[in-house]
């Protein structure tokens, strides 16, 4: 927005030397999330170690098992999100730039279907039609998390001020230069917000991978439920929640670093 100087004092205040804006990245508030997560995990550890675990619980509640399931879970989440980024951002750019309203509508409708269908449904359907295992779970996650990134890329590019676009064009930038030098940098915050949403989606939905034998922390939750071993269930659920919080925190951190200054 443009600020119009209206009063003498305002005029003076705008003339006062203002240092260039600096990102305040490392603040105390910034570290609230990891501290909270550490406290929760500490309490969980203290609670579990105070319990008398039976043989079934011992098979699950040990460092090796938990580390493997967490690794699977993270791998599913991160690889799926990376695939979404690689696929949905270019498609979003193409769709935003496409003059065809029909093409836009079709792409958005397909992405909507991916997300509107219950995640369990997508996973099971794919498993029936194709195969079980890690790859299938990955594909299901990609389908599910596609929409937020696609839509945010489109919105991010669409929302670039028409005047900024026109002055870029008026200065003699080619359409490609307008895209790479102006539109994409200005869309970065919106695209990253979509990616962040996708990441958090993936952490949650990756728990379903257990139904098609693709591992992850869903194994602990489902086993805990089926075998009525509540410590197992609780540890699985709390870990998923903590991962979601941490991933969101890391994404927010990256967002602040990558967002162009001046915005």
């Amino acid at each position: 927005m443009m600020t119009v100087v209206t009063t003498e004092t305002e005029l003076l205040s705008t003339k006062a030397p203002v240092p260039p804006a600096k990102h305040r990245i490392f603040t105390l508030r910034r570290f609230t999330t990891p501290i909270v997560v550490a406290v929760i995990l500490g309490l969980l550890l203290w609670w579990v170690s105070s319990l008398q675990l039976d043989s079934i619980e011992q098979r699950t509640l040990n460092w090796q098992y938990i580390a493997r399931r967490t690794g699977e879970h993270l791998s599913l989440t991160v690889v799926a999100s990376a695939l979404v980024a690689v696929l949905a951002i270019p498609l979003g750019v193409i769709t935003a730039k496409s003059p065809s309203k029909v093409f836009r509508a079709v792409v958005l409708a397909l992405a909507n279907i991916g997300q509107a269908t219950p995640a369990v449904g997508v996973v099971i359907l794919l498993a029936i039609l194709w195969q079980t295992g890690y790859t299938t779970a990955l594909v299901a996650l990609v389908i599910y998390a596609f929409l937020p990134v696609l839509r945010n890329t489109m919105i991010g590019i669409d929302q670039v001020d028409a005047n900024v676009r026109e002055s870029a064009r008026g200065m003699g930038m080619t359409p490609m230069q307008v895209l790479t030098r102006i539109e994409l940098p200005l869309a970065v915050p919106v695209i990253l917000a979509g990616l962040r949403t996708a990441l958090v989606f993936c952490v949650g939905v990756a728990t379903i991978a257990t139904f098609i034998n693709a591992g992850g922390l869903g194994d602990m939750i489902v086993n805990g439920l089926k075998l009525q071993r509540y410590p197992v269930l609780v540890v699985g659920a709390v870990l998923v929640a903590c991962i979601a919080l941490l991933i969101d925190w890391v994404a927010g951190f990256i967002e602040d670093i990558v967002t162009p200054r001046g915005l």
Partner: protein
Amino acid sequence: MSDSTATRAANGAVSAVSTRSGVGITLDSVSKIYPGQQAPAVEDFSMSVRPGELVMFVGPSGCGKTTTMKMINRIIEPSSGSIAIDGRDVLSLDPNELRRHIGYVIQQIGLFPHMTIAENIAVVPRLLGWSKQKTADRIDELLTTVQLDPGTFAARYPKQLSGGQQQRVGVARALAADPPVMLMDEPFGATDPITREKLQAEFLRLQESIGKTIIFVTHDFDEAIRLGDRIAVLSDRSQIEQFDTPASILSNPANDYVSSFIGQGAALKRLALIPITDARLKAATGASGVPTVVADASLRDALDALVLAGLPAIDVVDGGRAVGSITIDAISEALGAEVPGMPPAGA
């Protein structure tokens, strides 16, 4: 006077800014019909703009003045007709290459928010492949020209600047590659009256020293009178109702449409364009302690001083010395002298 020293200093800084002065622009039977619309937005527009001339397009909103201007750098492609800059047909040039050699300033400025002021100004030089050093020198030079301290402003982002400062950067950015032609679409429209007047004065001073060929679109007739060498008063479909100097349009409006556009107080507006020295001055009264008016002011300033003083005549001073006195009669006479068929003042 401190003001005039400031002016001289600014002009001194400006003289190095431009090595290329303006070139002529010719529009010949240019029309624009938007697809799906019956009536053309611009119909059969022909105009010849002289090198170094500042031509104002004035007209109500939606009259097609902006469309006409934007066809010159092909932001809008004309449906028919031809446009030539310096004798070269713009429609045969690569539009991107063409635009790099035409300065372009729009009302909303359109500074790139993610780039610093220096980076904003460097856009066209970068597109043209200038060296880093040449670009950096140019940025310093231009910021100084638009009266922004390079040390303070170069590293700032647009949102840290006031509206008036952003508009100055917009002008500096358009001048970056020293284009012979500038297109300006209501560049001062979104600023408050005080800032606008200041920007207009600075702009006039700048144009005096750089002599670009400028097409300037505005809906503010007073702005057109103040800035323009010639004014084109446009009506619907960008029809030219009158194309003449501000003084001629004020003294001799071509038709009712132009008269209505001038509005009330045409005589007063004309007075602002005539220097005091054009009036027949009488002998200085030599009275002390009464208001005086400086010799390089306009007749409007003189009238203002006369009315305020309530005296039949006040002295005109040049460099502290009274060179004569001015009366209401002399002002009326000078105004009458602008009408053809009357003997000119001082004849």
